[in-house]
């Protein structure tokens, strides 16, 4: 059935002063049944442009490496079927593929996500008991297992307007890391009080729950409702709830 498909892909890199020099380049290749966007990129590399830069690993939606903006929408290229892309692309128009826009460009479709690794280092890890015999039930596990299914694709960070438009990278941890913090804060073994830093250092107040992050999450994590809002509530209870403050003074609550 080898139908041809045209992709318009961003090619370019920053110059020595950090200005991005690049253009959108057309590539046309034959397409087979059942292909995903990443298959088309690989075919373009094999037939036209061996040096087209693109990150990928597992090609099965498990590692979160091949994040890009396809037709303007942030998604994993390995889990985006061409069938669906063709449906949304106007007849005769090329499919647009760009790198994630919120991160500094390395080259072509590859961006520098080292911010995320630096941010991760700021989160104090679990401080569980030394002895190995302890237990908790599946209901407690369910809540954090949702957070732990994050594949760190950074699509949520890429789409969050606090970071993408307002560039609050120094003051705001972003959705990925609120998921991480929620997983720590709600972990049955965790003994840290994380609320002050969630408010002060990680800037949860900046989030005004527009839910863009939840919309793009390929792991289906309900970031806004299950991670961010509960953390916001804990901050409110800690800092602004008069009853809780009184209870704390009286020593009824920690």
């Amino acid at each position, binding site marked *: 059935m080898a139908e041809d498909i045209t992709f318009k892909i961003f090619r370019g*890199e920053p110059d020595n002063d950090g200005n991005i020099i690049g253009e959108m380049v057309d590539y046309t290749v034959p397409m*087979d*049944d*059942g*292909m*995903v966007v990443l*298959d088309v990129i*690989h075919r373009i*590399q*094999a*037939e036209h442009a*061996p*040096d*087209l*830069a*693109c*990150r*990928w*690993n*597992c*090609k*099965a*939606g*498990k*590692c*979160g*490496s091949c994040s890009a903006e396809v037709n303007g929408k942030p998604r994993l290229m390995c*889990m985006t*079927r061409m069938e669906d892309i063709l449906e949304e692309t106007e007849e005769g128009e090329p499919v647009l593929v760009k790198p994630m826009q919120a991160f500094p460009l*390395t*080259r*072509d479709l*590859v961006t*520098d996500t080292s911010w995320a*690794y630096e941010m*991760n*280092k700021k*989160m104090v*890890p*679990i401080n*569980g*008991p*030394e002895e*190995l*015999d*302890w*237990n*908790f*039930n*599946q209901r407690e*596990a369910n809540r*954090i*297992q949702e957070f*732990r*299914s994050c*594949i*760190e694709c950074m699509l949520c960070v890429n789409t969050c307007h606090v970071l993408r438009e307002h560039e609050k990278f120094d003051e705001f941890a972003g959705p990925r890391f609120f998921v991480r913090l929620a997983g720590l804060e709600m*972990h049955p*073994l965790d003994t840290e009080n994380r609320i002050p830093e969630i408010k002060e250092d990680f800037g949860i107040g900046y989030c005004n729950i527009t839910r863009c992050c939840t919309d793009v999450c390929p792991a*289906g994590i309900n970031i806004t409702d299950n991670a961010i809002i509960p953390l916001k509530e804990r901050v409110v209870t800690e800092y602004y709830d008069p009853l809780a403050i009184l209870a704390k003074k009286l020593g009824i609550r920690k």
Partner: protein
Amino acid sequence: MDEKYIIHEHDVVIIGAGGAGLRAAIEASKSGVSVAMICKSMLGKAHTVMAEGGAAAALGNKDPRDNWKIHFRDTMKGGKYLNDWRMAKIHAQQAPDRIRELETWGAVFDRTEKGLTNQRNFGGHTYPRLAHIGDATGLELIRTLQEKGVHMGMDIFMEFTVRKIFKTDGKVSGCFAYNRNDGTLHVFKAKTIVMATGGATRCWEVCSGSWEYTGEGYALAYWAGAEMGDMEFIQFHPTGMIWPPSVKGILVTEGVRGEGGMLTNSEGNRFMFEYVPEMYKDEFAETEEEALEWVSEIVSGKLATVRRPPELLTRDVVAKAINAERDAGRSSEHGGAYLDISWRNPEEVKKKLPGMYHQFKELAAVDITTEKMEVGPTAHYVMGGIRVDPETQETTVPRMYAAGEAATGLHGANRLGGNSLSDLIVFGKIAGDYAAKRAKEIEYFSIIEESEIDKAIEDTLAPLNRESGENPAKVVEDLREMMQNKVRIIRTESLLKEALLDLNELEIRGKNTSSGSSRIYNPGWHQSLEIDAMIDVSRMCTLAALHREESRGGHTREDFPVPDYKYWGKINSVITQKDVMAIEHRMYPPMDEDLKKLLDADDFHEEE
């Protein structure tokens, strides 16, 4: 040479950041030495992240009859007795503590009703033994180790590829790498090096591996003079996706069968009943009724009182059965077999196998809660690897250690599902521990010959300087297709010999590829540099397969279709770099008497 390079000094350099590399790095860092971890991908993206079903450890949470002795026995039996029994013992004994340790570091495995780590059934394991989180256990393992590791002071070099291991006076002294992001060149001086570089299944066209699985770890060790073992044993996982073509090879977890998934052919028969090998006859159900009874006991949380379904035979057996059904004209629509879990409650399927549910829904438009999956064999794992000392994980090159899929010994001729994740954390820890201890005894970094560095730089930059040449993707594609057709599940002498000749030709083509001249994140350049390793690893596998004139585990010969207990059943292949690639065969030391008693005398065939 006027190319600039950057010099780093670390007591221990760990190559690879999957489960084994991270666990080694944590252990080494703990002891206070300086540690560098070098990885081809970004941290947390290594191949471990793709592991699905679970990590095997005889915790006995789900069935108290389990213990390390039975795990040892199952591992040896599954490996068809070519395992290094000393590693199989250490692994079975230490895996439970490594799993519990992960939990104290924040891992959240699925729970039993009593709130303990839950365990699932898997092929070749007598009892439910695999700690798991749905079907994303690898993600949990790598994330837990990553989050622990980044707080331990190690230096992490992401998206770096190691090109050469340096030796000084016959001992490892460092390595050369380049940064894939910016093309800068780096020399790492090291007192010890841990190879935690995973496997090589990208050498086959249909595989479950990521691009990283090009076997550079094996090749680097081999080029540095290390002994390689058991390279003929390649695990073809019986259940990879087969349709549509673009997803061919993607893994379908054995957990599907552990949760009661049934394999059927085009005639609707559960064909696995016909393929139970003699050595497993007593342990598997003889009728569908018995198999269903077992599943219903397991699903309702009871201890099994009847025998398990034959779908839970070891991977080598199931893969070959699917292959044989296809050859007999009874395959599924697209040339594999049907795998059916749709008879179970849809909510349970989504909870226990969420990844499979999404994978089939999104990539194949199949709803596994109501429809059958189509599956077929996919190259999944290399049982062979770098030969190591079972106690310390040191290779035959002094100061070089190896762990995980990079090393050989634990799995023999066939690996049991779930024994890989536990392998990573058991032997990763041991390798990190001994590499650090050894490094502490060494006072100075050795001097690395400048000429060797120059040579490494020249080789690395060569593809960038070729103005014309073949697209490296084409050479790699042809290599993978050749291996798929000639060094396949069922092998024959004539095709293996052809493969060796083909590899010579591919090697020449590989040395003349061109990829554009940019050093900034240039995938063509990266791929050009992978070809040499893929060629030599393919050669090791082919050569070892040609010599082993019998069928056993992950090595099946059409011209020698049965196991040979007298000779081949007792020896392992060893490959070293001489003038050409050289092969010999050797035995492990005799097994301790008390361990021998744990095995089934009937299939151990000691006296023959």
